[in-house]
């Protein structure tokens, strides 16, 4: 079945016991593109920004604005993780539009890895801000009966982060592939344009939910 092979990652080679799939190689390519772009653009920073520096500053300010709305106390502390997630997911989703590359996020392992990073960083920042006791206490507030529900929601939010990103990007790719099988070359183009929109929205949603979860652990009354 051709369509099936299109969506399962291929094992390219092995490093010791580890399988290196096409997803990982695509991720490396996208990481290299982001890194080179940011290093080149960040080389000559000026107080009065030129064209590309303006674009970079806009990205940083947009992410900072999202965090500042939710956590007004010290938003800069969370800028690195949320910004990294948003920029990487945007680039990874859009990478699927480059011929020969596939979105790494359409392999379930990539979203799962990022959701696990979010899971641990929520606890890290919670302990960092409120101490171990203070962080654990919000599971039994206002009443201890809520403890199982809180624990279940910890699991459910990780799973839902994973599946939302994975399902959206994979669904988009399947629709494009099916349209391409039916009527190649011109009919998939509107769908590909729409997938640019979906890619950016999904990255925004992932970052936003990360901020919401972190703010739930960090803020005193939440």
């Amino acid at each position, binding site marked *: 079945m051709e369509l099936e092979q299109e*969506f399962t990652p291929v094992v390219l080679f092995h490093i010791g016991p580890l399988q290196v799939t096409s997803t990982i190689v695509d991720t490396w390519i996208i990481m290299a593109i982001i890194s080179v772009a940011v290093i080149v653009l960040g080389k000559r920073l000026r107080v009065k920004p030129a064209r590309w520096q303006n674009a970079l500053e806009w990205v940083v300010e947009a992410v900072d604005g999202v965090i500042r709305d939710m956590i007004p106390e010290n938003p800069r502390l969370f800028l690195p993780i949320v910004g990294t997630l948003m920029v990487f997911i945007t680039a990874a989703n859009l990478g699927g539009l480059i011929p020969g590359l596939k979105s790494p996020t359409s392999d379930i392992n990539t979203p799962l890895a990022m959701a696990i990073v979010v899971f641990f960083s929520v606890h890290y920042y919670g302990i960092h801000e409120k101490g171990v006791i203070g962080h654990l206490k919000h599971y039994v507030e206002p009443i201890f009966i809520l403890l199982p529900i809180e624990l279940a929601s910890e699991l459910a939010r990780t799973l839902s982060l994973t599946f939302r990103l994975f399902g959206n990007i994979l669904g988009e790719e399947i629709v494009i592939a099916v349209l391409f099988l039916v009527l190649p070359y011109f009919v998939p183009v509107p769908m590909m344009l729409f997938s640019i929109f979906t890619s950016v929205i999904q990255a925004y949603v992932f970052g936003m*939910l990360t901020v919401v979860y972190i703010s739930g652990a960090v803020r005193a009354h939440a």
Partner: protein
Amino acid sequence: MGDLPASDLFIIITVLLSGGGIVAGVIVPAIGQMVVARSAMNAIARQPEASDAVNRALILSLAMLESLAIYILAVILILLFANPLRQFILGG
């Protein structure tokens, strides 16, 4: 359909269920999204200055509702492409 081999029957039933399932599974979150979007429009129309806060809550709620449809999609993709029970029927 009685004289069809079990493998053909399996594939036919899987495809029928997948098609029906995705339709049923998308309608319900779509109705939910409709309600959310309509209330957000009303809220923005009443208080345009609150549109930033409304937008944020709107996108969050839409993402939450959307994940319901995505769960259905994941289940159906598993049914179609990676059904763990397939080996008992198709013997592969």
